[in-house]
């Protein structure tokens, strides 16, 4: 079947679902089945086994139909001198990365693959980024355009294939990280970059506190940083760029040079969430201002993004050491009163990892483990929650797309 025929089949499926108010679970390669909130996310993590290749685009999963987006695949346009690649949503990440590597380019936001081969549509819908995020940019920073198949079956193009484009609202970036709740992202155009000419990784022994301070200090200096992580008493620093710049920075920072194979292994483990910490049954992902000193918790974190991303592998929701002072919790209390339900703001919670992250100006997501009260994702600010609901109602009035995946009840 050619792409046009597959797209019209997808369109018919969506229009029928809209008409019959039949929920759809949008799915690519399924590498992120575990990711997201609500009963669907939890159920699919254990039960979903889907045909790996199929002419049919759907399969049944409980009461919800799965819309398999893998068949709508292929690179539509790639011109290295334009620094743009356009691909259909079902295109495997590996296919894109191979095409780019052949021309000395790459996706600088380093989307995680979780040991599988995600689709580019899934990577953008999840909006997750790898270790280069603080230095090169996040997934959303590289989105130039996106095509949306909405609930009414309309195919809408936002953004484009050029670096600068301010015509209309920036819906293509809104779709990045939308977890499919607004519709099917059928095609994306992404900015790509030349691969750095040189890359070196340094290993420096130091405690977490000192590492966070050093990462921040170095980020304020003109150094070609492209990764800064810490685990178990060792800081890992990656430098990328012109050979001369990498060499000069290496001399300045000192530390022990890591053999390239070991370095690649380390950064890939971080990027693809394959580090041993990801084997834990309970795992929290904290996004914090990168200057935040190490939190006083009983387990040690895996620190990435120069201090801005921290993984904790214990049941920290009830970690006794995670009780912030009453003062810091009060200072972070929302200015508007939270009504109820999804608008409940976790920032005022009396204890636990969420209030601790909030007090530091960040958020805490339960990556793995039993869904905590308030949902997997950090609760949204009330006005943001209201606007999210209104946007959802406008784009998907019958709520057919990925119900509950981002926020319970939505």
């Amino acid at each position, binding site marked *: 079947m050619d792409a046009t025929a597959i797209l019209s089949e997808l369109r018919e499926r969506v229009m029928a679902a809209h008409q019959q108010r039949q929920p759809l679970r949008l799915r690519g390669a399924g590498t992120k089945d575990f990711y997201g909130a609500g009963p669907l996310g939890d159920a699919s993590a254990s039960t979903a086994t889907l045909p790996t290749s199929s002419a049919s685009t759907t399969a049944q999963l409980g009461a919800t139909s799965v819309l398999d987006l893998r068949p709508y695949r292929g690179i539509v346009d790639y011109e290295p001198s334009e620094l743009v690649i356009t691909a259909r949503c079902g295109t495997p990440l590996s296919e894109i990365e191979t095409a780019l590597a052949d021309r000395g380019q790459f996706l600088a936001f380093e989307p995680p693959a979780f040991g599988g081969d995600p689709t580019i549509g899934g990577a953008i819908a999840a909006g997750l980024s790898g270790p280069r995020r603080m230095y090169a940019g996040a997934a959303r920073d590289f989105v130039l355009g996106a095509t949306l198949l909405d609930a009414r079956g309309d195919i809408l193009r936002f953004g484009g294939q050029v670096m600068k484009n*301010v015509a209309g609202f920036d819906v293509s970036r809104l779709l990045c990280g939308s977890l499919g709740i607004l519709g099917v992202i059928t095609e994306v155009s992404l900015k790509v970059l030349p691969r750095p000419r040189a890359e070196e990784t340094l290993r420096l022994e130091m405690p977490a506190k000192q590492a966070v301070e050093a990462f921040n200090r170095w*980020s304020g200096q003109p150094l070609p940083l492209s990764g800064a992580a810490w685990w178990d008493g060792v800081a890992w620093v990656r430098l990328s760029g012109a050979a001369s710049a990498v060499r000069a920075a290496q001399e300045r920072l000192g530390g022990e040079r890591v053999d390239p194979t070991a370095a690649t292994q380390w950064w890939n483990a971080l990027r693809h969430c394959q580090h041993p910490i990801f084997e834990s049954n309970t795992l929290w992902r904290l996004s914090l201002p990168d200057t935040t000193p190490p939190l006083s918790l009983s387990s040690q974190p895996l620190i990435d993004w120069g201090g801005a991303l921290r993984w904790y592998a214990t049941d920290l929701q009830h970690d006794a050491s995670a009780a912030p002072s009453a003062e810091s919790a009060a200072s972070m209390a929302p200015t508007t009163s939270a009504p109820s339900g999804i608008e409940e703001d976790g920032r005022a919670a009396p204890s636990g990892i969420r209030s601790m992250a909030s007090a530091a100006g960040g958020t805490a997501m339960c990556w793995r483990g039993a869904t905590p009260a308030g949902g997997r994702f950090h609760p949204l600010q009330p006005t943001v929650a209201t606007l999210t609901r209104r946007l959802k109602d406008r784009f998907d009035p019958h709520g057919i797309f990925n119900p509950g995946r981002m926020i319970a009840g939505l």
Partner: protein
Amino acid sequence: MSQSEIAAALRQVLPADCVLSQDEELRPYECDGLSVFRQKPLLVALPRTEDEVRQVLVTCRRLEVPVVARGAGTGLSGGSTPHESGVLLSLARLNRILEIDPVARIARLQPGVRNLKVSEAAAPHGLYYAPDPSSQIACSIGGNVAENSGGVHCLKYGLTVHNVLATRGFTIDGDLIELGGRAPDHPGLDLLALAIGSEGLLVVVTEVTVKLIPRPQLARVVMASFADVQAAGNAVAAIIGAGIIPAGLEMMDRKATAAVEPFVNAGYDLSAEAILLAEADGTPEEVTDQIAEIEKVLQAAGATAMVVSSSEAERLRFWSGRKNAFPAAGRVSPDYYCMDGTIPRKNLGPMLKAIEDMETRYSLRCMNVFHAGDGNLHPLILFDANTPGEWDRADKFGAEILELCVRLGGTITGEHGVGIEKINSMCVQFSDAERAAFFNVKAAFDATGLLNPGKAIPTLARCAEYGKMHVHAGALPHADIPRF
């Protein structure tokens, strides 16, 4: 509702000197940087605090009066052209830098802070704010957020959307809305990305937190001459193709250099049909290497002459010509009309050729400056508003350039915004369903449609009227019929 009734309501929440209602007080606000569109507002509100901003919005919402937010008024698309029966909400008095944190590398700013002032304040810490629109001496950070402003260093350092971490502001209902934050990647929909570049249609921003980055140790620029514009266009693609991302990559045609040179004495090669400015920045070693590479690529691409800046003063002099291209156009012509389309870089050559043909057809001159690295064109159409018919021709000339941008796979606006100026061209770039989606976004934030009405997104009726020559996504109906 009468002007005096609305003024009275605003004076209940603002000090008397913060509400302007006299004709002579309103005049200075009748246009922004696009002066061909003029409209006197009903009233001007000049709040001094965040709470006063909120009070203005709540009052206007209650009285159902349109609100047009305005920063420094340097916008080039009429985005803050006033509404005849609305309040112009000037944020100019909220002009304090609230915080510079050199360790966290952020600046927290009120919306009226001037763009350049941010970098000046960060300079003692070796940091700066990257987006640098040509109007950076005057334009405000709030306006930059509204327009998603760019500048000459976007290819490497990004646009406003890539450099803003958080905003704080209000919806038309007066609800506080905080988007983004100092921690990266907040959960939920990326409303920050949606708000940036929304041209004052979704929220009014009262605080902006921006990312500061280390000032590179060194920057040098290569100025290369080309005997024809096509060759210069190809040289741009060759640089990118060689895996080089210059800090800036700009192009000017001969008409532009000829206008600029007597004005700023930048040292441009006036015999060249086009010149390229390619900047390298970073460590001294890195800059030396990259300049050598750029020179090699440009040589192979047919550069007829090359000069590398040998001092910071010389580098700034080379750039001064580019940054002063707009004022220079104003010197050589009574009026000029600046376009802002973006196209895939590979189409620079055909685009320039087409503009040349249009000059003949419309009997108007056009000088061309480009953010070549981004494919962002700024053709400056020269005209005299006092000569009957010239503005009409300039307007049509501009619209034709924009339609060609869309057909060549690009967009009608790269960084200046749609505003009121390019509202018809939006019908060319987007389908009815796409514009309906934009209205859905608008309605989610502002169901009453009071924030900056009539801008950025044309109604279906407006497009139907304009639709005489409807082109969408490169597909022109009956493309075989000559129509220009």
